[in-house]
């Protein structure tokens, strides 16, 4: 056996840092399927996982990959998969099963240009709404986006921790640029890494209710083979897990699924502010585009424009309150993202018509430059 935490300083790609973060978080199962630009995560896991006591399998498609991940999670093992747009589309149905059956797992989408086969080797951020609403039905989900190779290492650990704590699939929405870029990554000592594992049930096993929430809205989760004889279904179900085809049962289940996220927003939502204290113009961005925005803020300040950056670390649930508060005191917003306005519309929704909100978007395939942000900034304000 080799250590799961490879303490040290490295020069590694975002994809590899993601895989190392997963193992540092305790991931022991990866169900994969090759797809550019996410393949390197599967490749790295296939070599490393058996050495730390885990299992890698390459499934026949992404539908099977995520199905195997859900199965492994119910065997009590922290599990993940990684893909890009076309594979993410195929995973949507079983993402819903994961939500409905409250199955912890982590899904990484290394975004590339779309729609369809699009630009396999070139980055984009155009699956952000798919990550929120891609599976059918109403639901809440946790989605995060990293801006550097170091951050994707830690964010993968956080993704596993949140997924275990809330019994929910967590999605990391990175992009080809972060995935394929090499940067310095420091992996700390194992004891400095905080990991969270799902709460296991205690007490009698007979008539156990695997969907009866505890005080934080999350039910303890047994694993298959532990004697709880759980029943797990994607049908609307009661706390016992039994199908319940009734309006009341639907309401109760939906309140539970949605409540565990909406009632814990302070614990889940993470953002980073840069020069926001006196900012008149707020740039909202995430992932690789936050790096563009960071440079743009610096250049704007040098020109005497009071710009600041709100970097979204958690994308969903959306940091609505924070943007509403900022809207009360600033002149306007600019959202910077490699799509045609997916998060921009969320910002617009939050600020209403009180404050102007602009988009610096892109069709995909390359990063946005600070100059593109600056020109909109100067023109609009």
């Amino acid at each position, binding site marked *: 056996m080799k250590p799961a935490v490879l303490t040290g300083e490295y020069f590694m790609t975002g994809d590899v840092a993601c895989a190392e973060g997963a193992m540092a978080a305790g991931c022991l199962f990866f169900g994969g399927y090759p797809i550019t630009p996410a393949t390197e995560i599967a490749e790295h896991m296939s070599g490393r996982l058996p050495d730390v006591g885990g299992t890698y399998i390459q499934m026949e498609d992404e539908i099977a990959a995520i199905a*195997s991940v859900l199965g492994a999670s119910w*065997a009590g093992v922290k599990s993940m998969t990684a893909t890009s747009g076309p594979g993410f589309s195929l995973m949507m149905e079983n993402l819903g099963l994961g939500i409905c059956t409250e199955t912890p797992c982590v899904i990484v989408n290394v975004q590339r240009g779309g729609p369809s086969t699009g630009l396999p080797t070139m980055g984009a951020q155009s699956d952000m709404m798919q990550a929120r609403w891609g599976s059918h039905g109403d639901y809440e989900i946790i989605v995060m986006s990293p801006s550097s190779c170091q951050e994707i290492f830690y964010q993968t650990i956080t993704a596993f921790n949140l997924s275990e704590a809330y019994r929910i699939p967590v999605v990391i929405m990175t992009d080809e640029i972060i995935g394929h870029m090499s940067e310095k990554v420091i992996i700390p000592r194992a004891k400095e890494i905080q990991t969270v594992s799902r709460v296991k049930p205690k007490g009698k096993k007979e008539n156990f209710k695997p969907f009866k929430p505890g005080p934080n809205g999350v039910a303890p989760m047994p694993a298959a083979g532990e004697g709880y004889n759980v029943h797990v279904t994607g049908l609307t179900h009661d706390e016992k897990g039994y199908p319940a085809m009734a309006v009341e049962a639907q309401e109760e289940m939906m309140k539970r699924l949605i409540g565990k996220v909406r009632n814990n927003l302070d614990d889940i939502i993470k953002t980073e502010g840069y020069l926001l204290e006196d900012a008149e113009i707020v740039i909202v961005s995430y992932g690789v585009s936050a790096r563009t925005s960071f440079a743009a803020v610096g250049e704007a300040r040098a020109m005497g424009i009071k710009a600041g950056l709100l970097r979204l670390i958690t994308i969903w649930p959306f940091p609505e309150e924070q943007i509403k508060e900022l809207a009360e005191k600033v002149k306007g917003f600019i959202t910077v993202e490699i799509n045609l306005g997916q998060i921009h519309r969320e910002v617009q929704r939050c600020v209403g018509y009180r404050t102007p909100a602009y988009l610096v978007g892109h069709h995909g395939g390359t990063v946005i430059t600070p100059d593109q942000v600056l020109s909109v900034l100067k023109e609009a304000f």
Partner: protein
Amino acid sequence: MAKKNKKAELQPAHPLDDLIRTDRIPHIWCQGCGIGTVFSACLIGMKHSGLELNKFAMVSGIGCSGRAAGYVNVDSFHTTHGRAIPFATGLKLANTDLNVIVFSGDGDLFAIGGNHFIHAARRNMDLTVICVNNLTYGMTGGQVAATTPHMARSTTTPSGNPENPFNLPLLAFASGATYVARWTMLHARDLAESIQVALLKKGFSFIEVLSPCPINYGRRNKEKALDTLNMYQEKTIIKNGADPSELDIDFDKGVILGKFIDVDKPTHIENYDKIYRTRE
């Protein structure tokens, strides 16, 4: 509660009750449906295997047969349409002590889930797959399936099925399954024994079970529930070791039942452990 106990004293439990979620009875299966018999045979096979019942897990997809997971009193997973096998694959790989049964229907396993079936068989994944083949999509009202005979009528082939059905044992054999058998639900004892053998056998085991759907298949094809059972009795031949290529379902010629394949090959888990867990 007291009332229930009193009733239990008067009425001794059915010998399979410990394997059934009795609080979920009555089940959804129609009168004349064969799934219940296949389900019982599965429970008997589980019991007679002597394996620890707590280490069984059942995974189903969607459809009438897919509801089996909702009635068995072991850890049970009613997944998405067609995806029982890959879910079961993850479950088994992450805890190799589990005995994982996939219990589902022909539409689920061989149309929407066909790709997963052939790959799990190719890998020799350690699963026991039981397919209830009623030749149709029963739950949605009787549409044509990948197993519906040529020219049979269904709600979506009102003038007869223009397509040809799969020979499931041949498909399983060609894909690499190490145990392949076919029975009808009328051959309940042979079936239970076959399931017992399959459960104790390592690797990918596949059992096809012919089962009537009088409501949604028989009704449209001039086949009453008893007619189907008569065919199962009179138009079947037990021929163990038969060549899988002769196993097309044609009741005019006679349908071959029995155990066709029983070979030993290293399982996926054995190979993975050998190659990946012993290296320096």
